[in-house]
């Protein structure tokens, strides 16, 4: 092991040390005075974000016998994870500070999950992929069941666990098949093998099983079944974290695997395109239809999360179809959308947390008159939901525009039908988001007393909404970064 690997892995190392440090510091802090842990976690996220810009890290490279790689894709996602962690820890404080115990463990596990995500974005072989992914998954098993005194939380943990293990089995089986076909678990080897024109059924089956297994994280059909239940049952900060961090960890691996299985010249991609198209369509339809009759905001966000995954999968399908050549706006759109999704979803969950803290309810009906009780909360949630619905001038609009747009590329007409389904579901999505917006603005509040918002949360909300609008009006910067990532990927994949 040489120094350059240590440089490359600096964020991960720092994160590991920090997580362990938080765990140990917890032992010294007296009960009821654990809030420094939260501040520490927030600080760590900021530090990590800064670290990703360190020239040694940012210039990229590979290490650890080719198992660990830092490239623009990894950096893009690492930064997204930092933002995720930052926001999640910030809004978690509303919740975690009130926990009777276990704050230290909560932050430690969250940080370790973050470490898992960091690793996921940098892995370069399936062995590391599997283990890193399991770090994220297992952490979330625990986090979901964290309120072990509540049946809903434990039930969420159990459901996440069973489906998670099942999907791990599916993923493993897929990896096994790929390994069986290629004889290696290294991404580079497999990419080379695929690019040289091998399209055996076992390879295809392996690839498909891998993507299906990853679908558990991204909440794609058919391994999406846990999503609504777990979102509803988990502690709200965990739901927020799960909805963004876990999903993005899944997607970074999907993108990574796409470079492996659909490199330029590879002939697997037409099958994979069909696969992604089908899954995207099913996911879109399922998520959007299921969200209509929901009465619980967290459950609604669960279905919405499935639906959002469907939109991103359209972009992935387009990327698979274009094989990193020509118009790659599908993949850059997917990356853009994921980044947008972080801010949007967490803004929504911030409001959910505050409202739950004040009213103790997650029922949508209890959001009646929210804009009257607290104009700021109402406006923030409405903006976030409308952004998710893809309404200008919010950032979600541009993301959806790119994703849906990519499916209409005349170069791959086989995706047109998915695009059409996407269009239909946009309307459905607008419907159920507007149902919430309606309660916020149109309905009269059940109890007139205003909702208090702490200064910290005000800052979070203002920042998030500002980001939503700014990103929607001036998406150029983010698109440029996403496009750069995709260009680098294309270069790497072509090599």
């Amino acid at each position, binding site marked *: 092991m040489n120094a350059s690997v240590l440089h490359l892995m600096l964020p991960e190392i720092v994160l590991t040390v920090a997580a362990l440090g938080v765990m140990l510091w917890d032992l010294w802090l007296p009960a009821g005075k654990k809030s420094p842990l939260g501040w520490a976690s927030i600080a760590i996220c900021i530090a990590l974000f800064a670290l990703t810009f360190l020239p040694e890290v940012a210039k990229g490279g590979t290490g650890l016998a080719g198992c660990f790689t830092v490239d623009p894709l990894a950096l893009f996602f690492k930064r997204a994870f930092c933002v995720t962690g930052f926001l999640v820890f910030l809004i978690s404080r509303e919740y975690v500070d009130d926990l009777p115990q276990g704050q230290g463990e909560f932050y430690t596990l969250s940080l370790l999950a973050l470490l898992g995500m960091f690793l996921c974005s940098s892995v370069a072989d399936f062995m590391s992929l599997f283990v890193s992914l399991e770090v994220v998954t297992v952490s979330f098993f625990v986090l979901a069941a964290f309120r072990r005194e509540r049946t809903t939380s434990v039930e969420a943990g159990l459901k996440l666990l069973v489906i998670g293990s099942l999907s791990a089995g599916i993923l493993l089986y897929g990896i096994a098949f790929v390994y069986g076909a290629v004889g290696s678990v290294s991404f580079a080897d497999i990419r080379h093998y695929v690019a040289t024109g091998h399209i055996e059924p076992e390879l295809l089956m392996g690839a498909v099983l891998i993507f299906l297994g990853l679908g558990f994280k991204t909440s794609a059909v058919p391994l999406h079944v846990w999503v609504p239940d777990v979102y509803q049952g988990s502690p709200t900060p965990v739901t927020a974290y799960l909805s963004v961090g876990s999903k993005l960890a899944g997607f970074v691996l999907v993108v990574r695997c796409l470079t492996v299985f659909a490199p330029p010249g590879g002939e697997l991609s037409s099958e994979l395109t069909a696969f992604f198209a089908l899954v995207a369509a099913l996911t879109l339809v399922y998520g959007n239809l*299921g969200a209509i009759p929901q009465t619980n905001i967290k459950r609604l966000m669960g279905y919405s999360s499935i639906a959002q995954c469907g939109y991103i999968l359209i972009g992935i399908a387009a990327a698979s179809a274009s094989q990193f050549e020509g118009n790659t706006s599908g993949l850059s759109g997917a990356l853009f959308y994921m980044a947008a999704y972080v801010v949007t979803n967490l803004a929504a969950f911030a409001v959910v947390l505050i409202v739950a803290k004040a009213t103790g309810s997650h029922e949508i009906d209890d959001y009646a008159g929210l804009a009257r009780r607290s104009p700021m909360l109402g406006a923030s949630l409405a903006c976030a939901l409308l952004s998710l619905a893809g309404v200008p001038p919010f950032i979600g609009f541009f993301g959806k525009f790119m994703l849906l747009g990519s499916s209409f590329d005349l170069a791959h007409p086989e995706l047109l039908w998915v695009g059409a389904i996407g269009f239909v579901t946009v309307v459905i999505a607008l419907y159920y988001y507007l149902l919430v917006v309606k309660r916020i603005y149109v309905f009269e509040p059940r109890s007139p007393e205003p909702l208090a918002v702490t200064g910290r949360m005000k800052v979070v909300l203002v920042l998030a909404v500002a980001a939503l609008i700014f990103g929607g009006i001036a998406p150029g910067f983010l698109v440029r970064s996403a496009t750069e990532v995709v260009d680098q990927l294309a270069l790497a994949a072509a090599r």
Partner: protein
Amino acid sequence: MDRAPLLAYVTLFAPLAATVVITLFTLKHKALSGFLALAGIVTGLVCTILLATDVFAGTKFPPHEIDWLSVGGITLKFGVMVDSLSVLMSLVVTGVGSCIFLYSTGYMKGDEGYSRYFACLSLFAFSMLGIVFSTNFVQTFIFWELVGVSSYSLIGFYFAKPSAVDAGKKAFLTNRIGDFGMTCGILLLFFTLAEHGISTSLSFAELAPIFHDAAKHGLDPYSGTLALAAFLIFTGAMAKSAQVPLHVWLPDAMEGPTPVSALMHAATMVAAGVYLVARTYFLFFNYHDALEVIAGLGAVTALLAACMAFVQNDVKKVLAYSTLSQLGYMTLSLGLFGPGAAMFHLTTHAAFKALLFLGAGSVIHGCHHEQDMRHMGGLRKLMPVTAWTFIIGSAALAGIFPLAGFWSKDAILTTALHESRVLFGVGLVVAFMTACYMGRAYLMTFEGEYRGHAKVHESPATMTIPLVVLAGLSIVAGFFSLPIGFLGREHPGALDHMIVGPGGPAWFPGILEDHFNLMVAAGGTLAAVLGIIVAWRFYGSRAWSIESFTATIGPIHRWVVNKFYFDEVYLWIVREIQQRVADVCAWFEKNVLVQGVVKGLSDFTRWLGYLVRLMLDGHLHRYVTMALFGIVAILAYLGMRN
């Protein structure tokens, strides 16, 4: 700009200016409003007289036009056409108008909507003058509609009275039906000519020579399409001039203030149809089929309206049906190649019919808004000025020598005799009937014992002066037609000279050369005298019993009393067809489109949502099964692709 168009523009816009100023500034100052309106119309009169001196002297003015709209190669223009025809008509409008405006200042005194009244009246004057000076079909149509609007606003002037509002609406809608035909006619005419590359203009001045010399311009003079266009344009005239079957609005229009009835629904507005046909006679001249229909309609209108006039008890209604009948007369003349005679009758009719209406208004005013003749009688002694002027008007209408009506009616009858003996006969019968019902009206109103209760008084001077002026006009107007030397055929009458003279329209058939026919004059006079005698026997001396007479003719009487059931037919169409169609459409909208398709779609989507929701019922093993099935299905799908 030359003097002539300038004067025409001043004539045209002076009343509009009055409207605008009244609406914007003087609604609260009643006297000022009345003065402004009067000033507007008198300005118009003065200008018209100035114009008349030029035009009747034979000066020819080219039409003055500006582009009103010019798009895609089609240009619609706006301007003024100063020729003898328009100046004559303008004289009628501003002349009679001035009298009536003056009369109104007295008649409307104390009314809440005094200013509004004058604003609308001035607007009407503007619209009417717009038709008069119009240079082309589209401009005519525009003012045609505006006349309808001002008529609507004035008929429904007493908007608190539902019958008045309904009458206004009826007038507007009936006119709309005519305008529907007219629009189609204009479109058809324009595009037929354009299609054949003959002309892309709608200007009278440009079209007239083309039609006049059809062959030279490659125009098929007997084209059915053009005949249809001509007839469609005539439907506009039909509605405005209240020809059967679009006459139903006119009697109802008497709901408006009486001066309005005098000005619009007797003297000018209803004459617009006649004026239009006369103005565009080049279009009709070639199409004998269209003209025959027009003549027939005119005859039928004249006859039916005269019948209905017999059974009216409302003095204004009698006059209204009489107007209808006279309009039918004019139309008859138009259909028989006699636009000149029609215009002549129009002019004289304007004078004496306005006189009659104003007289009726004076009576109504004096009787405190009593309109039913059965509650009048013996008013001659109480309102002498009104009575005498009314007698002059009635006699003129009946066509008694040497009053105005005699000459103009004679011109029409001569024309009719020249073309069709049957229609000549109809004309004579109508002449008889006219004299008869006017006799009835006069006798019921002014003779016998007073049957009412209110205290009757003579009207103020503002109202009687116009009566006297108009009575004077009713006496002298006919003499304009007299040829110099009376029998010298080589010297046509002054009116004839005006219309077809050098200052006249580009092409226009004049009054027939054998203008004065002694036989016709004698026949007409005889019919009128007979009519008066019959009326006297029934209503004056009571020698004949009206009750037994009506019993004798039984069913005919019923038909006449019910106005030949025209209103019922229209009502049936409105209720049973129009409203049914509307209800069916509304039902379709509500139950098929909204409740059916739209709601069905949204309910279906929501139902699908519930279905999806049911899939996750909380049982973990079912989740696993679903996931497995999903995986298997996806794999099978991919397997089947290969």
